[in-house]
């Protein structure tokens, strides 16, 4: 595999993006699907309510959140040291650590390990990083079957779709859609909307897959440098099965997931599930520190940990953008995003949808590829308000807008594709705006004129046309407040 490397980081060949229509087109398609909008709205309303109930005490929430944000920020502050410490601890415990710069690297490493163990049947626990790598496709191309075992991911895999949410992958589907899909794919299961029956059928099928699996692949929620412990949380038990029953376990994670100490875990655990789904804790918290030891009767004989960079070290290089890497993937920002609730997860064309996707994907894939995402926000700050690790999502969105629109040609651009979205016309508008609003003499004359003739601007004018599609045009007042204040004799100095 040829790997082109630039001084500031590898070229990301296969970004975490779909090819095809852009955000606006996909969003439009989603907007005219009333069923989809209903599915999302109902789900999001429930999730917001449950989260709010978990953090009903604002003082406790503020203190806990401060601690969680600190745990993540402290980890990033010492990231290279902690990664080395993690590696050393894991090695001492018998977990083999691999480093992958790109998703191609990561896929090659996974394939190499599987081939070494002659593994052909793989079960997967939920892993967003493996989605980012398009790992399943890569393994399939090499004759290895990887079955998603998280129920939501399994449904998505059967449907041949991408997840629409990082915590609840098939949240865009309703019961009849899932019933139809499972009936067509599970032998002996007729169409039923009984969720218990559907779940039982999936259990039956997937139990056989677990029993037959040569390897399990999982993600990681937190990797503890101090002890070399991998912390995985889940409700279903498929994550524990994937990491316990097959003889080989491969864990894949981004390099940012490390935390310094084991005592960083309790506050982060107190934030993650409550933010994600409004539950006090997940059913399982699975802490893995080594492969099977002599005398132990189960657990994988070999455990591998893959640390994936894929652009993260570049994000890390910028002091402001670095905050993006604090993310613990709880999805609360997604659940509270009014844009996401309207357009759903697939519109983003990114493995990570919603607010976190809007800041992460353009940085990983590049603004040239995903530069429209930072604009898919009203900057309403609903995400900022709930983010358990205090990521200034709105400020980062603005920063990315700035990077995308700046004149190209910076020697070492902070973000790949910086300057790629600069439009001369738009830049000109802001230049004119600047002169008008920074110079009182001009401002008085321009606004006096606009207040008087604004209502005669033709309705076909570009901005007005977009505005008036479902709104009446704004009414210019005839006289500005400046004029009326002067006339009313209000002091002006």
């Amino acid at each position, binding site marked *: 595999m040829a790997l082109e490397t630039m001084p500031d980081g590898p070229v990301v060949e296969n970004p975490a993006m779909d090819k095809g229509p852009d955000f*606006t087109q996909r*969003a*439009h398609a989603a*907007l005219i699907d009333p069923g989809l*909008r209903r599915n999302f709205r109902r789900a999001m309303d429930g999730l917001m309510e449950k989260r709010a109930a978990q953090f009903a005490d604002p003082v406790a929430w503020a203190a806990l959140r401060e601690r969680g944000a600190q745990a993540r920020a402290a980890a990033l502050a010492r990231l290279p040291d902690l990664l080395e410490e993690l590696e050393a601890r894991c090695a001492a415990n018998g977990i083999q650590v691999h480093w992958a710069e790109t998703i191609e690297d990561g896929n090659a490493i996974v394939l190499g390990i599987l081939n070494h163990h002659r593994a052909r049947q793989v079960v997967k626990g939920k892993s967003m990083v493996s989605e980012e790598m398009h790992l399943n496709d890569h393994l399939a191309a090499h004759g290895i079957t990887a079955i998603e075992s998280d129920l939501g991911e399994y449904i998505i895999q059967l449907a041949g779709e991408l997840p629409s949410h990082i915590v609840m992958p098939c949240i865009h589907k309703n019961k009849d859609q899932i019933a139809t899909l499972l009936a067509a794919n599970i032998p002996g299961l007729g169409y039923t909307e009984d969720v218990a029956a559907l779940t039982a059928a999936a259990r039956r099928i997937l139990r056989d897959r677990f029993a037959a699996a040569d390897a399990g692949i999982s993600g990681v929620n937190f990797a503890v440098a101090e002890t070399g412990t991998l912390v995985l949380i889940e409700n279903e038990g498929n994550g524990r099965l994937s990491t316990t029953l097959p003889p080989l376990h491969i864990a894949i994670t981004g390099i940012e997931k490390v935390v310094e100490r084991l005592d960083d875990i309790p506050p982060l655990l107190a934030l993650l599930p409550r933010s994600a789904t409004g539950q006090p804790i997940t059913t399982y918290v699975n802490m893995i520190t080594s492969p099977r030891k002599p005398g132990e009767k189960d657990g994988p004989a070999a455990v591998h940990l893959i640390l994936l960079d894929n652009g993260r070290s570049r994000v890390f290089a910028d002091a402001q953008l670095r905050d993006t890497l604090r993310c613990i993937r709880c999805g609360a920002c997604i659940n509270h995003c*009014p*844009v996401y609730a*309207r357009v759903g997860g697939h519109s983003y064309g990114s493995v990570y949808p919603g607010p976190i996707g809007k800041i992460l994907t353009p940085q990983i894939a590049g603004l040239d590829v995903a530069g429209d995402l930072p*604009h*898919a*926000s*009203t*900057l*309403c*700050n*609903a995400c900022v308000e709930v983010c358990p690790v205090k990521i200034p999502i709105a400020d980062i969105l*603005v*920063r990315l*807008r*700035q*990077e*995308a*629109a*700046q004149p190209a040609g910076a020697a070492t651009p902070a973000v790949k594709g910086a300057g790629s979205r600069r439009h001369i016309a*738009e*830049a000109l508008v*802001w*230049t004119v*705006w*600047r002169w008008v*609003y*920074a110079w*009182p003499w001009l*401002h008085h004359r321009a*606004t006096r004129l606009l207040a008087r003739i*604004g209502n005669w601007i033709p309705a076909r004018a570009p*901005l007005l046309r*977009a*505005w*008036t*599609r*479902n*709104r*009446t045009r*704004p*009414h*210019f*007042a005839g*006289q*500005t*407040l*400046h*004029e*009326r*204040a*002067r006339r009313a004799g*209000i*002091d*002006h*100095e």
Partner: protein
Amino acid sequence: MSQPSRPSRPETVYFFGTCLIDLFYPQAGLAGMELLRREGLRVVFPQNQSCCAQPARNSGYLDEARAVARRQIETFVEDWPIVVPSGSCAGMMRTHYPALFEGQPDAERARAFAGRVVELTWFLVHVLDIRLADKGEPVTVTWHASCHAMREMGVRDEPKQLLRQLSGVTLVEAGHETECCGFGGTFAVRHAEIAAAMVDDKVTSIARTGASAVISGDCGCLMNITGAIDKAGRPIVGRHIAEFLLERCHGA
């Protein structure tokens, strides 16, 4: 959230009119100033003010934003509170000016300016402890909470406290009251379809309350919401809270 600790009652305040009020809602600006004057304050409206510069900043044009922001900083020179009848513009000036000017020669000045910015309803409640005597006919209204008032200025209950003081006014909470109306400045035209879906849902929630008026503290939201209400032909009026309070208590 980042409001100053309760300042003592000043004799003089600045009024920042905002660019939207300037062109589209001057009566809301006048009402805001009138409310302050009736509380015995001297109100100064500097003629050289223009815009908080949020539109350029939010579009990523920081140099342009800084030039316009600097004009405001150089205009509001006295050490008086700067009262703003918009949570969004107040949020821009209070929470974003310090970052916008970081590393600039006038960074300190920008920080000091930011520290003087207060949102109108917050000022009426916490500094002036205003008492409102309602003289209007009974009416049912609903409130639209502006995102930046809530999440940048920490102004949540203050406007509703004011509305609740009005004896003839029944305040009915709309569903999803704290959800964004979809304005978002350039978002409304850049992503017109999504913005339309958002404001349509907002209008539906408002209509469900049965209120005859929707009150807001931000003219951006108001322009968006009333535009959609009018287009849908619904019999609901939109009012800036300053204008509404003045109408109710002192006649218009």
